[in-house]
């Protein structure tokens, strides 16, 4: 008999989606579920590498790519309950399920992330204020733990392991598969409404007002506008269109044509995105999108506008960019977010993806990001003096009892992190019980000193 070969490893330079930091990693890519397991030393599962910073890197140990373990295992067409291996991407799920009339319960701004990654970062979408985070829709997780055992955990079974894993950044074990509930849809289209808000106060008023609210809502902010226009924004709301709302396409309301995808082949030179060009872009976007009013679009354009461009991160040039996303509680929101936007516009840092969103009650995930309040997400091109600027932002966030989003972070110091995530001790208690020898770790965990 021939020996069954274990998966081979290779050395590969990897980074997160923000392209910084980038380091050589020892990588393996199992193709069979039974091969999913630990290594001598430390291990970390990595899905599609769509977190921005160092969350999916493990420079001193092994990185286990889950991309080939992407199979759909069970689907109940009555309840919408779907079980997939953790390497399956949201795109694969949508491609298979939308034509059957099912949509993801929660989706982040890209469909190229893996289900495992969505659980590990407990991602949120435009519907967080209504439906909560991804983890809240997960019925159970099959996992490989540090002692090599395979367990199933859920909100009722090994619930402490479950809520440590949801939002736990892969540090409790390897997620082999996840079961979660899809939501029924009648069409593949979204009924959208755009409204202008002339400044930040108006934007908050509109976001707070249930009259303007919808299932999905998000606010695009022009961070470069100053003075009385500071924080001028476009409020974007929408809901899955019912069959009656798409009369013209009623013969196949769930089918979409495959879209052409553009690829950024090269890094853009740095001068292309400068405060001046971004100001132009922002002004144009505000005027054009703000007056669009009510219209209908397909789910791809509504949820994943950036996915139409492969490697859009190259737009920011070789040096890349930093994503900074934070959340502050409701009572602190207006002041905290005003300060942050003020700092940005004063320092003339160009962010052309600034998104403000209302969040609902948090999930039980111990290291989950969302909290009842407001979140602001920013793309900032990397410059020499950025570190100091972000430190100041951290201070503002801390001062207003907020926190930064780990999936987008590559730089917060351990001390700041501990203040932002008060349930860390609970998490560490679970970590000590399931992984006492710290067999699962990442560059992020080392930086944030998350260890048993």
């Amino acid at each position, binding site marked *: 008999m*021939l020996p069954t*070969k274990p*998966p*081979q490893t290779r050395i590969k330079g990897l980074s997160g989606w923000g392209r910084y930091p980038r380091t050589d990693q020892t990588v*393996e890519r199992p193709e069979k*579920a*039974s091969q999913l397991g630990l290594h001598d030393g430390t291990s970390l599962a990595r899905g599609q590498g769509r977190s921005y910073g160092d969350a999916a890197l493990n420079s001193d140990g092994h990185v286990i790519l889950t991309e080939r373990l992407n*199979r759909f*295992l069970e689907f109940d067409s009555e309840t919408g309950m779907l079980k997939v291996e953790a390497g399956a991407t949201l795109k694969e799920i949508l491609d298979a399920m939308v034509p059957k009339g099912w949509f993801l319960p929660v989706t982040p701004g890209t469909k190229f992330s893996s289900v495992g990654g969505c659980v590990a970062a407990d991602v949120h979408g435009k519907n967080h204020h209504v439906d909560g985070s991804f983890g809240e829709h997960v019925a159970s997780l099959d996992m490989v733990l540090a002692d090599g055992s395979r367990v199933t955990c859920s909100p009722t079974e090994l619930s402490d392991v479950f809520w440590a894993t949801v939002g736990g950044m892969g540090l409790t074990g390897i997620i082999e598969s996840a079961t979660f509930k899809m939501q029924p849809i009648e069409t593949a289209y979204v009924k959208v409404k755009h409204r202008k808000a002339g400044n930040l106060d108006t934007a908050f008023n509109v976001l707070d007002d249930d009259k303007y609210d919808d299932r999905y809502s998000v606010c695009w902010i022009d961070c470069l506008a100053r003075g009385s226009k500071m924080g001028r924004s476009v409020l974007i709301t929408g809901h899955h269109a019912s069959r009656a709302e798409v009369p013209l396409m009623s013969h196949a309301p769930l089918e979409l044509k495959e879209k052409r995808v553009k690829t950024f082949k090269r890094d853009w030179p740095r001068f292309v995105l400068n405060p001046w060009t971004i100001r132009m872009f922002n002004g144009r976007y505000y005027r054009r999108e703000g007056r669009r009013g009510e219209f209908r679009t397909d789910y791809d354009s509504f949820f994943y506008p950036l996915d139409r461009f492969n490697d859009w991160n190259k737009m920011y040039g070789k040096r890349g960019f930093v994503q900074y996303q934070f959340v502050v509680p409701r009572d602190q929101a207006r002041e905290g977010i005003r300060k942050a936007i003020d700092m940005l516009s004063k320092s003339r840092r160009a962010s052309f993806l600034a998104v403000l969103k209302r969040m609902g009650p948090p999930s039980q995930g111990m290291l989950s990001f969302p909290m009842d309040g407001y979140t602001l997400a920013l793309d900032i091109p990397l410059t020499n003096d950025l570190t100091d600027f972000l430190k100041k932002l951290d201070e503002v966030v801390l001062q207003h009892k907020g926190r930064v989003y780990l999936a987008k972070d590559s730089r917060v110091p351990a001390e700041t992190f501990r203040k932002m995530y008060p349930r860390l001790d609970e998490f560490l208690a679970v970590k000590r019980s399931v992984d006492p020898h710290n067999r699962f770790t990442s560059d992020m965990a080392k930086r944030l000193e998350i260890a048993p």
Partner: protein
Amino acid sequence: MSERPVLVLGATSGIARAVATELAKDGRPLYLAGRDLPELWRVASDLKIRYGVDVNVGVFDAEDTKSHEAFLQNVVNRTGSLGGAVLAVGYLGDQAECEADPQLAQAVIARNYAGVASILLYLAKHFEETRTGFLVGISSVAGDRGRYSNYVYGSAKAGLTALLQGLRSRLQKVGVTVLTVKPGFVDTAMTYGKEGMFKVATPEQVAKRIVKAVRRRKDVIYVPKFWRWIMFVVRSIPEKHFKKMKF
């Protein structure tokens, strides 16, 4: 293509799963066979849920040649006669280990050729009776010439290539296509992390070529295509020089 099921042997391999996926997209019912039953179930439910096709699974062990007749009978009993078969059983042994341990070399030959030949001959009988369908054999560019670094595996694949040639002329009389696939470097577990890989094809690209070639009733394809030219050069080097080459 008719709607009879396609039997995929060695169905958990990267290429086989991709071929099965392409066939499922066309609405083909499938019968997936291999040694690892839990893994086969995973591939099967994946294809069932994504593409809504009928998928059966069963255990098949290439080296256990005594079981082959009963295996095929059982498949036919369960699903009716076959519309085609894809053979993707293979094992890339380590040459140095094979030289050190001829027993291991024996096992590599058994997996890649002897066992495979047995099931192919039973399949040929089946297709001769039904007088329709196709047979795809995944061989390798390694079978085109016995090379210093890879000749044990290569010799087994050379045997497979020759067998498929023979079956092709035997089955063309009854209208059954036999396609020999000679992959170069394909991005699967077999090649992952190996040195000296270039222009690696994805399993999806390979699968699309295979399904297209079956439809067009091709005889032999190299995937990616340029391997035809590489192997042409490799074959045309005179032996007195070739024997001194170490690749």
